[in-house]
């Protein structure tokens, strides 16, 4: 179909650099993945990787407070960052002639964040993040589902046991010393991938990367992920939780332990999730939403996470008058039909996934993010070009085997939300 061109090299200080040229529009996308996420947080500091991400936007030695945002906006660019279980990313899309501005900003906060750090900035962003938690989690129907599912699916000593957003208590406990220690531990060129995509001259880009990042010192080796990082392939039992909440309709989340992102079986899980839940022709939508009108909606999602095991989560909201138990039974019943999955089912899912992948690559920022991801997680940016082959390699037999092995009641967590006035 298409082939994304890739040049990859490494600076002496360990910074991994990926360049990918595409001159359709006079735009460049910069993206940095740091190999640190909520999985690296220590006990009592849940949510810290994300709070730290916020601090990276508060200026550095040569960039004033609010300067990072103001300079990018003044250049007509867009920017953001995000924290997830396995990583923290930072990115900006700029008019092509502002490439050096982006490199200067990114290198300054990687090299000189601490001189600009203050208690006042930390307290302010702590408040912002606590409000982010209220907005995403506490004041949202079913807003704590991922927190609860992670706690059910991973043992307390596994790094995925706690959520990215973290607890209010732990956010309150975060100190300037934590910021300093975290920065010195994880924010080093040897723990980062820098990707540049778009309209640039490769020789000039190499020169500018060397100019801004070349003199940053290599950091100490990155400590291993804390806690238990290997898991049995399946849960070996069922765990359940029921939550009574101020919601109008019951909702059920069923979650299955699956092999980690990047393994062959993960791609079978991904295709299976599309067979089950993606689009109006998907098995669960067709049956639970359309035919039986049990469910209002249905989603199936295979988490792209890499430590020990991933999860396939399926959730559905009950129609008025229908119960969580009916939905759960409905989902389990439909899983039986995966035994008879046919070529056409797999073909539909693969065709959707392939089209989706190609469509994502239209955007430079998405291209850059994926290149950083494949490099950071698998040491292989070329996977951006071979991902579709991995998806196409999934066969009906593989889906049947996968369902038999992983989609049983002895490998799942079931989280049920029940309207409070009915349940309590």
């Amino acid at each position, binding site marked *: 179909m298409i082939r994304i061109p890739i040049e990859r090299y490494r600076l002496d200080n360990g910074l991994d650099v990926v360049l990918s040229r595409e001159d359709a529009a006079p735009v460049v996308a910069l993206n940095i993945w740091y190999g640190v996420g909520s999985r690296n947080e220590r006990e009592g500091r849940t949510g810290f990787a994300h709070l730290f991400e916020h601090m990276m936007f508060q200026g550095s030695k040569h960039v004033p407070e609010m300067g990072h945002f*103001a300079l990018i906006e003044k250049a007509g660019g867009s920017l953001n960052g995000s924290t997830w279980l396995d990583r923290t990313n930072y990115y900006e899309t700029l008019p092509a002639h502002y*490439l050096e501005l982006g490199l200067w900003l990114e290198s300054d906060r990687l090299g000189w964040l601490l001189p600009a750090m203050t208690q006042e900035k930390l307290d302010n962003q702590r408040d912002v993040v606590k409000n*982010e938690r209220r907005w995403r989690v506490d004041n949202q129907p079913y807003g704590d589902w991922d927190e609860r599912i992670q706690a059910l699916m991973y043992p307390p000593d596994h790094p995925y046991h706690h959520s990215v957003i973290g607890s209010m208590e732990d956010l309150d406990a975060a100190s300037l010393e934590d910021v300093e220690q975290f920065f010195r531990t994880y924010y080093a060129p040897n723990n980062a991938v820098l990707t540049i995509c778009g309209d640039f001259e490769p020789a000039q880009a190499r020169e500018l990367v060397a100019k801004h990042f070349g003199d940053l010192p290599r950091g100490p080796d990155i400590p291993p992920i804390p806690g238990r990082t290997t898991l049995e392939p399946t849960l070996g039992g069922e765990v359940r939780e029921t939550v009574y909440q101020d919601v*109008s309709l019951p909702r059920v989340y069923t979650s299955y332990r699956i092999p980690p992102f990047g393994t062959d079986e993960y791609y079978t899980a991904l295709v299976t999730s599309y067979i089950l839940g993606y689009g*109006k*022709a998907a098995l669960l939508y067709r049956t639970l939403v359309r035919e039986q009108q049990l469910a209002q909606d249905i989603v199936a999602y295979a988490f792209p996470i890499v430590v020990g095991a991933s999860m396939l989560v399926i959730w559905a909201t009950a129609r*008025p008058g229908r119960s969580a138990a009916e939905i759960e039974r409905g989902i389990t019943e439909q899983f039986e039909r995966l035994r008879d999955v046919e070529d056409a089912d797999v073909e*539909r899912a693969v065709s959707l996934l392939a*089209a989706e992948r190609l469509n994502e690559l*239209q955007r430079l920022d998405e291209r850059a993010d994926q290149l950083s991801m494949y490099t950071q997680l698998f040491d292989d940016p070329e996977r951006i070009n071979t991902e579709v082959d991995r998806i196409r390699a999934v066969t009906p037999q593989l889906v049947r085997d996968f369902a038999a092995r992983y989609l049983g009641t002895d490998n799942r967590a079931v989280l049920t939300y029940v309207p409070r006035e009915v349940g309590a």
Partner: protein
Amino acid sequence: MSVLDRSRIPPAGPPPRVTLPHIERRSLASGLTLLVVEKRELPVVDVALVTRSGAHADPPALAGRAHLAADLLDEGTETRSALQIAEEADLLGATLHARATWDDTEVGLHVLTPRLGPALELLIDVALHPAYADEEVERKRKERLAAILQEQDEPRVVASNEFARVVYGAAHPFGAPIGGTAGSVRALDRTELVRFRAARQRPRNAYMVVVGDVDADEVVRAIEPMLADWQDADVPADEVPAQGPPAPTTIHVVDRPGAPQSELRVGHSGPSRGAPDYFPLLVLNTIFGGAFTSRLNSRLREEKGFTYGAGSSFAFRRHGGPFVASSAVFTGASAEAVGIVLHEMQRIREERVSEDELERAKSYLSLGLPRRLETTADVLRIVSEQELHGLGDRYYDEYVERVRAVSAADVLDAAQRRFDPAHAAVVVAGDHGAIAKPLEALGVGAVVRKPWPTDTDSNRTAS
């Protein structure tokens, strides 16, 4: 290597040339206007068939009509069942959507070039021959009613719905949610939907945009036979009623005891997309609440830490639309946050914006244009916007120049004309018991308690 002086902000290189899309305009035999833009980096095509009839045509008693009529388009045609449509699209690797906005109804498609022919045929079938079968109408109506019930759990939706109701009132289409209310959706049936759609789905009330790896002649050849039976006719005018005079600022608290946050909406009605002061308004809003470094976000987030984010927007619909400032703040900060929003609305009407703010906003908008033209879907949006609002095919050629021409005096003038903090609707969805007194103490207007919405004849769940 020499030591780099990091205190110096790197200068920009020479600005690149921005190529704006070239539009090929064709008139088809049916009377439909076709707009084609070639964009060939990837073998993909985006298509939209747009009808100039949207939710603005819904009388309040039938709110949700355009939305439900659009939602049903891909739920079965005269020759294809809903499941067949979904399976065909999936196997083509095509994404098909049908949706109504306040201004229009759009059936759209994203597909790989080699499969454009069969995908177009599917799109045309869905747009021109929907079945509106009774059982599908009934199913989607129930789904919509359940969605309305779910929206009552979402503070951000409750706040936005209440804001629209307060600003536009019960007699104006914009006063109701675009998807309707429980009462109005119950009143919709097959006859209403078919009548609405049949009267408006006409070639001269529509246009088609195609962007991607194709040329205009190919598209014309493919599409003409598919439209052979499409008859033209006059369509209803669908006038939008005028509004009454705005009321003095009042604070409406939609009460949810114990809420950890308050969802704020502050604003009033605003101008149409065709407003003569559009560019000054664009710059005004960017400075006020339209960017990360805007006044609202700087004060409420970066200075006060009250919120994860604050922003503002003009809806710029065809027939006017709201101006709204939005944020979600922690409960204890509700009154102070409302005070800050109203104060900033007043301040920007009294003092000229600084040269630095003006320059940043203008650069942000003008230099950001290429980012808005990256994908086939991006270009389609811009071309469709031009056509819907009658802006002209070369509108974006002058965009940068017109943004650059806005002065601080223009911004002040626009703010004085379009911001009215003395006649603002303030909606706070939050804990009345905790915030009513401080809101009253602001002294900006009366505080009125509203009950949290609940479905009137609840068909809630058994568990």
